[in-house]
């Protein structure tokens, strides 16, 4: 009887863990990596408006990428903030669906929430994030769901960090 009760408890516990996992974004996959600045959390794929509104106090400057071919729909926009940039895609100015495509950490005044900043050793990245999904001479990439966290490398050191949306 005790064995049966123990078995029941184990099954119940496993089901409990399993249902917790379903709360994660990406239908059971690990949660996407996010970047956080001044209490504002953001990740590629998020709508840009609430994030930019929350960061308005930092007066982000923006630059629109003009297409070489007139008439192509949509435009890329970069918003420059202290230590990082947010790159978005929108149909036109004021587009409510403007989406974050890329977050680029541009200097070591900011770091990932896990504590890695530009200038870190490649090994420190692996120690923090584990085995990468992709490893080349030039980068370590960690894919989660529809996003990827990338550490650009030169001579074994992190030279850039970016959160990218996957197409």
């Amino acid at each position, binding site marked *: 009887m005790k064995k049966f009760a123990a078995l029941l408890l184990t099954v119940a516990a496993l089901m409990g863990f399993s249902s917790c996992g379903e709360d994660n974004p990406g239908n059971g996959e690990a949660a996407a990596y996010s970047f956080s600045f001044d209490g504002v959390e953001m990740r590629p794929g998020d709508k840009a408006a609430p994030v930019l509104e929350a960061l308005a106090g930092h007066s982000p*400057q923006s*630059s*629109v*990428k*003009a*297409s*070489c*071919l*007139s*008439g*192509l729909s949509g435009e*890329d926009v*970069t918003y*420059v903030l202290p230590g990082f*940039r947010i*790159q978005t895609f929108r149909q036109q100015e004021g587009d409510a669906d403007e989406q974050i495509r*890329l977050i*680029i950490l*541009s200097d070591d005044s900011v770091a990932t929430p896990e504590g890695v900043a530009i200038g870190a050793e490649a090994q420190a990245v692996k120690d923090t994030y584990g085995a990468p999904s992709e490893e*080349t001479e*030039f*980068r370590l990439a960690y894919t989660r769901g529809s996003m990827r966290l*990338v550490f*650009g490398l030169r001579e074994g050191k992190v*030279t*850039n960090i*970016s959160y990218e949306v996957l197409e």
Partner: protein
Amino acid sequence: MKRKQWIACLCILLCGGVLLWFAQLLLVPKYMSGNREGAMTAEYYGDGSTHDVLFLGDCEVYECYTPPTLWAEYGITSYIRGTPQQLVWHSYYLLEETLRYETPRAVVFNVYAMRYGEPQNEAYNRVLLDGMRFSDVKLRAVLASMTEEESLASYLFPLLRYHSRWSELEAADLQYLFHRDSVTHNGYLMQTAVVPKELDIEGEPLSDPTLPEICFAYLDRMRELCEEKGIQLILVKAPTNFWGYYWYDEWEEQMVSYAGEHGLPYYNFIPLADEIGLDWSTDTYDGGAHLNVSGAEKLTSYFGAILRETFGLEDHRADAELSALWQEKCNAYEAEKNGGTS
């Protein structure tokens, strides 16, 4: 089948062919307003004259060098066969085709396209390839350029691609049924607006800084073709360096190395912007991605001196016939500049 039936069949086929031809003329985009870039490739065939210098490349040639300025200041004749996002294989086939019409003294190739190892978008193929005259070069260009979604048939019979435009037809489709207006000045697409560059931002991180092998393979072919014809090939990088069209140090190293290895002159104008006299608050029409006419004239003036002093291109301004031809071109150029079309 009786003779009358044969004739009837032939007449039906002929009428069908004429109708399809007419439908194609009507439905293909005319590119006379909006995206005028689509009219640039075909415009070359109407020029008729020969040129000392042929420019090849993407928007970094057709927005950065002005043939009328090169003529007015140096008496050098030139044509820009540029199109948006012109890839290296596009440039190679345009060069091969152009050499069937003329043999310039120098070919100037802008290296920004070396970054792309694959076709990016059908729209960029269309604006270049649809405008090319039918020839074996065009066929090879299409085969080298098509994305997976495109078909050779749609380039041979553009009606297959554009048949659905019937619902978007406008007056211009009738107006330009049999002719096109000129949209450029020997390939230079004028932009007169001023939108200052306010931010200096680097490009997005590169996943691999190595320029694609296929680009070097086509550049080799361009170099060999120029050598064969005794043409001086000159590599350039426009002075613009905008985050969305960024030129990385790693790419620069590879181009310097290629040029050195093959004894080719290579001019990267990015670090020379001050010497050229570019002012990013007045010389760009889109925040620094491209030069406007004021910036293009400054760069052309600077580059013209190089063409004259380093490559010995002669001054044709004493040639009465050429002078008359170019005077007309310069007048049209000044008229558009003063009219402020952008």
